[in-house]
């Protein structure tokens, strides 16, 4: 007795078959999508899984002075990183790693958290770990999965604080910077130049990292090397700095806040650039500690500031070079013009007082004595617009374009500026102040150096420059830098001659006698700039030899009181050092005379 099969069984079976066919077709279509349409994408993901690209950090290029003295170099060292992809047990590994490496656990966690979005990129935990840490980590390789130790050179600045503002320092590339630089091969955790020539020539100095492509299994064990591509060290940057002069400048500035710029007026090559107080860029090479960084930022003397290029202050009497040149060129004064200095000048209701009465002075003596009354008179005749025009032609009020980051333009005021910034009209008294470099005029030492270079070289505005050449790692010259002329000032030879005679008189018999150097004719101008913030700033800006200028020296000593007292002796020390170098150079023609 077999029970009958239900009548609707066939239709029900058919519907099951149809449902099954539909379901399998869906799976088939999904496979088509995954394997055929997106096959290449997944193949790439599979490669990302199994291929570890180890980047072998290429050493950054060296930085040399003009004679080949190494100013920045590298030292072999080891770095510790974590690879989030392989760090499967952070809760166990990170505390252990923090202990061995000696950094706070929280910092490690936050670094790991940040790296998780790109699990295949190693996250640097600490640079320059000692050999003992390296051994301890290697011993525990199995326990500390996801932790890597790799060779990565550390940047060394053998002279410490010397020329720190010129050389700059390194820091980890920031997220914003990385966004822009990733196409050019920069990766998270890379060190890039953050200041100085390290920053402005980062692409020159940076090497191409080597690549090892290794096949690994899921446990991260390396199985075989698939490709090995050696890295290429960065190019060497040769600076125009003369290390002898630089060190002299550093020595002279010690204890002061201020800046020194020495420059070749014919080429714009910067021979020395010092800013005081300074900092030690070595502290940045392995990642500066939070505390140290805060200390630098809080320091009221602002050691990170490059006072030669990035801080504009009142020029004081140094600005009389502009006023004097304008008067001579405009025919308002000649070498033989006579001025009566009673020690003060009346302007309407106000009386402008000078320190002393110079009596009857000619133009040269007026410059030599830095007679304010004479320059007030000249300023009054010239008017603010003409003063501003001359100042701008000499390059004030705009950056010099020196190859350093963060240069400031300074200020050359006019009526519009004063109205815009101070909400006040331009008074005739402002013109008098401007004529002697007070009031609203703000300049940087590098601007003064460029302007004085133009006076010294006969009227050519040259761009100040620190880079002299780029060499390949093997020492071949890759690129040389030639002088960049930024403008020709059409000053009459007689006007220039008269001004230069005045500047020579400053050192011979005037306010700048402290800059006198035996065996070298020095010309220059002192300045004592009143500042609302304390004692006057002391300036000296000069060149030598007066008959054929080959070096311009600008010294700024903040709150140094009088240019002739504190700034001129510094210039003198640098110039006599330069004279010694010239004499030595004549004996043995070396780098310097090239």
């Amino acid at each position: 007795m077999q029970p009958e099969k239900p009548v609707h069984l066939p239709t029900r079976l058919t519907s099951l078959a149809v449902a099954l066919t539909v379901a399998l077709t869906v799976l088939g279509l999904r496979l088509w999508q995954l394997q055929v349409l997106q096959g290449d994408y997944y193949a790439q993901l599979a490669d990302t899984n199994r291929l570890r690209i180890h980047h072998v950090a290429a050493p950054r290029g060296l930085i040399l002075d003009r004679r080949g003295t190494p100013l920045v170099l590298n030292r072999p060292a080891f770095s510790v990183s974590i690879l989030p992809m392989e760090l499967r047990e952070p809760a166990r590994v990170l505390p252990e790693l923090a202990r061995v490496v000696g950094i706070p656990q929280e910092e490690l966690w936050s670094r790991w958290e940040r790296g998780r979005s790109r699990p295949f990129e190693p996250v640097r935990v600490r640079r320059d770990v000692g050999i003992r840490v390296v051994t301890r980590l290697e011993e525990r390789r199995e326990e500390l999965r996801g932790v890597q130790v790799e060779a990565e050179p550390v940047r060394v600045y053998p002279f410490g604080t010397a020329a720190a503002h010129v050389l700059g320092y390194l820091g980890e590339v920031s997220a914003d910077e990385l966004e822009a630089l990733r196409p050019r091969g920069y990766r998270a955790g890379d060190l890039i130049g953050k200041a100085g020539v390290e920053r402005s020539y980062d692409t020159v100095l940076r090497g191409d990292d080597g690549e090892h492509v290794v096949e690994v299994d899921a446990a991260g064990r390396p199985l075989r090397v698939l490709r090995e591509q050696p890295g290429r060290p960065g190019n060497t940057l040769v600076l125009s700095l003369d290390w002898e002069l630089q060190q002299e400048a550093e020595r002279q500035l010690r204890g002061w806040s201020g800046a020194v710029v020495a420059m070749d007026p014919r080429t714009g090559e910067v021979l020395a650039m010092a800013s005081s107080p300074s900092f030690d860029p070595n502290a940045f090479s392995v990642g500066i500690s939070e505390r140290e960084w805060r200390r630098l930022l809080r320091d009221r003397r602002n050691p990170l500031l490059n006072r030669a290029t990035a801080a504009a202050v009142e020029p004081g009497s140094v600005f009389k070079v502009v006023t004097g040149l304008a008067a001579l060129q405009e025919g308002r004064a000649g070498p033989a013009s006579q001025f009566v200095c009673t020690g003060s000048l009346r302007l309407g209701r106000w009386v402008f007082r000078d320190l002393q009465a110079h009596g009857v002075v000619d133009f040269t003596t007026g410059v030599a004595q830095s007679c304010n009354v004479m320059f007030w008179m000249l300023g009054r005749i010239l008017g603010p617009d003409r003063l501003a025009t001359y100042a701008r032609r000499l390059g004030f009020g705009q950056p010099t374009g020196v190859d350093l980051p963060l240069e400031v333009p300074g200020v050359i005021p006019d009526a519009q500026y004063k109205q815009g910034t101070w909400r006040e009209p331009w008074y005739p008294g402002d013109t008098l102040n401007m004529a002697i470099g007070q009031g609203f005029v703000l300049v940087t030492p590098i601007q003064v150096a460029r302007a004085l270079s133009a006076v010294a070289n006969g009227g050519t505005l040259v761009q100040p420059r620190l880079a002299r050449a780029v060499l390949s790692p093997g020492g071949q010259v890759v690129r040389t830098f030639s002088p960049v002329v930024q403008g020709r000032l059409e000053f009459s030879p007689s006007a220039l001659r008269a001004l230069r005679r005045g500047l020579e008189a400053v050192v011979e018999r005037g306010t700048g006698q402290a800059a006198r150097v035996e065996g070298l004719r020095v010309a220059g101008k002192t300045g004592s700039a009143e500042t609302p913030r304390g004692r006057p700033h002391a300036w000296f800006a000069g060149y030598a030899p007066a008959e054929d200028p080959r070096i311009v020296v600008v010294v700024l000593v903040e709150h140094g009181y009088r240019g002739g007292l504190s700034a001129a002796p510094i210039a003198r020390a640098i110039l006599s050092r330069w004279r010694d170098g010239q004499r030595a150079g004549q004996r043995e023609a070396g780098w310097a005379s090239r």
Partner: protein
Amino acid sequence: MGVAVTADLRAVRRRLRHVDWVLVACTLALVALGTAAVASATATPEQPLGLLRPRLAHVAVGLVVLAGLAAVPYQSLGEAWKLLYGLSLALLALTDLVGRTALGAQRWLALGPVSLQPSELAKLGLVVALAWFLSRRKDPPTRFADLFPYLVLAGPPVLLVFLQPDLGSALAFVAVLLAMLWAAGLPRGPLAALVAAGLLVAPLVWPLLKPYQRTRLLVFLNPSLDPLGAGYNLIQSKIAIGSGGLWGKGLFAGTQNTLQFLPMQHTDFVFSVIGEELGFVGTVGVLLLFWVFLLRVLQVASSARDAFGSYLCVGVASLVAFHVLVNVGMTVGLAPATGIPLPFLSYGGTALVTHLAGVGLVLSVAVRRPKILF
């Protein structure tokens, strides 16, 4: 004596003619493919053939069981449903009590050197019991109340398996029950009501799930939730399959497989190995083999001598189909990870023997079909 032997031989020959050779061929092809994939998935430098040996032993046992069940008249199995069903329940209960735990679930019963996964055996036990009860009815179940005996039958194994916990197998029982009720003529209304009731119960089950099961379900909805943790398996499986492309990377040459990026690549994710190493051609080939196999089983169901035979075949078909859809769906990211093996292909003795035994049942039905008139 001699006459009797001749008569027997004639009967055997007649039966062999009724064997569905396409069905057998599909089964053997799937078993062979699975064996190759398992060998590739478990090969190591020390053991180039991996788990090939035990796999072959499983295949041998499975084929003997298949042949034996094909030879036994299936009606007698039906009459023994109490024994089969009771044994299934007893083993499941024992597993829940003293079973071996692996991967967070108590699924295995150790019998000396062999370990047994009773949930797999219970699947067939339930199929036999349900088929027997359904075939005893005169009219198709139409009212909701008619479902009561079947729910009583299916309830205990579902519960016991769920407790292990093995969510996938518990759902497999439910799928088999629904498919067989549908074949028995249950109208859409009560069936839909049953499914709706199940869905309403689902939120009540949520708090009973182990944390890892909840994560699996959440991760299925969004695998990138935790790419290195719970979502890892699903992502790696998709990478393996996708990277196989059209033609695959060749047996033993899949990097996802051989470098161990693919988890559980010889059991739950054996399909991903095939996807990576044999490509789209391989995966679609496997799906086509299953398709032909299942259509042939349904064909046997419709041509069976009696209702019991039909229901047996539907039960086996739904069992295999559920496993294929859920397992493959999981490997391609269309279904959550529930830890269900791929029939005939995954490594795992009990599952393989169970599925081959199911094929044995179907063949038993097939060879006892009335003469087919072409």
